Each structure stands twice: as structure tokens, then as C-alpha cells.
């Protein structure tokens, strides 16, 4: 249990080993560890920025979807409007056509009526003469009573 030369040897051994560690081990450890720390920090930062980008992208997508939906709604609105316009126009056209046919038909009816009336009035004189002849038992001269007959026809 005496203090002896061992003391000096042990002191030198510790110092030498510490020096060896300082020279050959420590820098390599520190370089690797710091590099790794840097890499991890970069990785974390990259992940964070990716997450932020994803958030941005999500927001953008939502915005785009919203815009698209709005646009679609507008298009549908416009289409409906257009359809309404077309429908209205078609209805108007149809009404106009109908009117035209109606007018034409009425004109024709009027013409036919006039014609029938003329024909009728033309034949009234004859009928009247024939009737009168039967009543009078003798022939009535149409020429003699022309004026009277025309007047009668005009009255009918």
C-alpha cells in the first residue's frame, strides 16, 4: 500500500491516453456527430417546409375547387338563361306563326263568306223571281223588275 513509482507511471498513462484520444478519436467523433446533427436538422427543416408546402397546396386546391364550382354554377346559370331565351323565342315564334295562320284562316273565312254571300245574293233574285212566278202563276219578267230585285238582293 506504499506510494511508489507506479504513481508516476499511472499518471503518465492517463495523460498519454487522454492525448491519444484528443488526437485520434475526438475530432472524428465530433465531426461525425456534428455532421449528423446538421443532417438531422436539415431533414427536419425539409420535412417542415414540405408540410408547409402541402398545406399551401391543399389551400390552393381548395381555392381552385371553389373557383371551378363557381364557374360551373355560372355556366349553368348562363345555359339556363340561354335555354330560357331560346324557349321564349320559340314560344314567340310559335305564337307569331299561329297568329299568321289564324289571320290567314280568318281572311280565307271572310273571303269565303263574302263569296258565299255574293253567290247567295246573286241567286236570291232568281229564287225570288221563281217564287213570285209560282205565286202569281205567271212569269215575271226579270228584265222589268231588275231594279226591284237588285234592291232586294242588296237588302238580304
Amino acid at each position, binding site marked *: *500500500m*506504499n*506510494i*511508489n*513509482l*507506479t*504513481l*508516476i*507511471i*499511472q*499518471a*503518465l*498513462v*492517463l*495523460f498519454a*491516453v*487522454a*492525448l*491519444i*484520444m*484528443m488526437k*485520434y*478519436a*475526438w475530432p*472524428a*467523433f*465530433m*465531426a*461525425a*456527430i456534428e*455532421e*449528423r446533427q*446538421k*443532417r438531422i436538422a436539415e431533414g427536419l427543416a425539409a420535412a417542415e417546409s414540405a408540410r408547409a408546402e402541402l398545406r399551401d397546396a391543399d389551400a390552393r386546391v381548395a381555392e381552385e375547387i371553389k373557383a371551378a364550382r363557381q364557374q360551373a354554377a355560372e355556366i349553368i346559370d348562363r345555359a339556363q338563361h340561354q335555354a330560357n331565351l331560346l324557349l321564349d323565342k320559340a314560344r314567340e315564334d310559335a305564337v307569331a306563326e299561329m297568329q299568321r295562320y289564324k289571320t290567314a284562316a280568318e281572311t280565307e273565312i271572310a273571303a269565303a263568306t263574302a263569296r258565299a254571300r255574293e253567290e247567295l245574293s246573286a241567286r236570291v233574285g232568281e229564287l225570288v223571281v221563281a217564287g213570285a212566278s209560282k205565286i202569281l202563276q205567271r212569269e215575271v219578267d226579270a228584265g222589268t223588275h231588275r231594279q226591284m230585285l237588285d234592291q232586294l238582293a242588296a237588302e238580304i
Partner: protein
Amino acid sequence: MSGSAEQAAGGGMTEYIHHHLHNLQWHVGAGPFWVINIDTVGVTLVLVAIFLGVFIPAARRAHAGVPGRFQAFVEMVVIGVDELVRETFHGSSKLIAPLALTIFVLVFLMNFMDIIPVDLLPLLGREAGLPYLRVVPTADLNTTVGMALTVFVLIQYFGLKHKGPRLFFKEMFTAPLHAHGFAAVLLAPINFLLRLIEEVVRPGSLSLRLFGNMYAGELIFILIATMTLGAGLGHGMTYVMGPVQFFSGFVWTLFDLLVALLQAFIFMMLTVVYLSMAAEQH
């Protein structure tokens, strides 16, 4: 344990203990100082070889990628020591962190020799022709005082280097008690005395704490071993003391493992603290 116990039985318990506490010595010159404890130095060198054999290749293999399990373990120790040093020591020094790592791991390995069954290596040593073999270097006062001496020299070196020679020597006389004028002259010898005491006490307590713990640990293991010293299968006590020995050995091994780690940590921590105190101004 019983193998060597039987052989030591001839001389009894006292000789067994004495034998275990005797270093394998080589007298290199005349006088009690010129002696080398071959077992202490030899075991230390083997442990140094293990330490360097683990840490130097690990340092070479260290890269920024994903480390293996073993590599991660080594680097965890390195990072732990590095962070501790960074927290405590605020100056810049290339030596202090590797020194702290060396002290921590080396002292732990030396302390750990205590955990190896107390008779195992001496028995093998006897087979190899070594009459004595003490395997715990930190249970040898030479080792702990020697390491404390290195730390002491480094403390002085750090003080000189970080403060400059002028402040370093001036502080010997002006700190810790400050004064001006004539009082400063009066306080100078007191300050110097306080400084002297401080410088002696630090390495003293550093070395004796470690030595005391490990010596006691070793002694307890030896005492546990003597429980069945000279025991024979014919004695009834053997069957009582055997289990008692096993149990107490088991408990003390667990406790001593804790002590080994703790003392290694304390030695390292105090070294770092002393060095940082030496580097900082009062």
C-alpha cells in the same frame, strides 16, 4: 472461490486477506519508492488497450449516417461526456473533453475489475507463476494519486494558459480575500496559504475518494470470500455459509457496480469542474 480458499486455508484468514492485498511488485532500484506494482500497471495497460481498441476504431468508423447499435452506444457515451463538458467548461480546450471521456471510461473499467470474482484472476495468475495479483487498479493508491497528479498538473496548466502568467500568479495572493492598499499586503500570505491548501486538498480528496471506495469494495469482496475459507463438505456450517456467501456476494456485486459507475462519474465531473474553475477568473 473455494479452490483458492482451500489453498489459502493453511495460513488462515489473515494470510488470505494479506495475500489478496499484496501487489505483484518489481523492485527496480533501492528504497521503497523505486518499486513498480506490475499488476496495477499491467491491468491498467490491458484496460487502456480495451478502451482504445473500442474507441479509436469507433471514431474511425463514425460517419454522419445511421450508426449501428454498438457505434450508437459508443457515440452515446461520447456525446454524454461532450455535453457535460460543454455545460461546465465555457472556455475553449481541445483536451478537456477527451480527457474527461478517458477518465470516465478508464476509471469505470478499472473499478469494474472489482466485479470479476475476487479469486478468479489471482488463481489464474498463480497458475501462470505470479505469486501475487491485485486486479483493481483503482484500489491501489498509486493509481488514484497518479491520476489526481495528472489532473493537478493540468489544473495549473489551464490556469496559466487561460489567465496568463501575470494574473495566474497575482491571484495566488489576491484571491479569495480581496482588499486594497495595506490590507492587501496583509492578506497576501493568508491568500497564498488558502490557495496552497486548496491545491493540495483537491487532488487529495479526488484520489482518496476513489481509492477509499474501491479499496473498501475490494475488501468486502475478500471478506465475503472468507466466509467459506477452508470449508469442507463435512462441516455443517458450509451449508449455512455457502448460501449466505452467495447472497451477500450477489448484493455487494450489484452495489459495487453502482459504486464503480458513480465513482468514475464523480472523478470525471470533479476533474472538469476543477479545470473550468482554473480557467475562469475569480
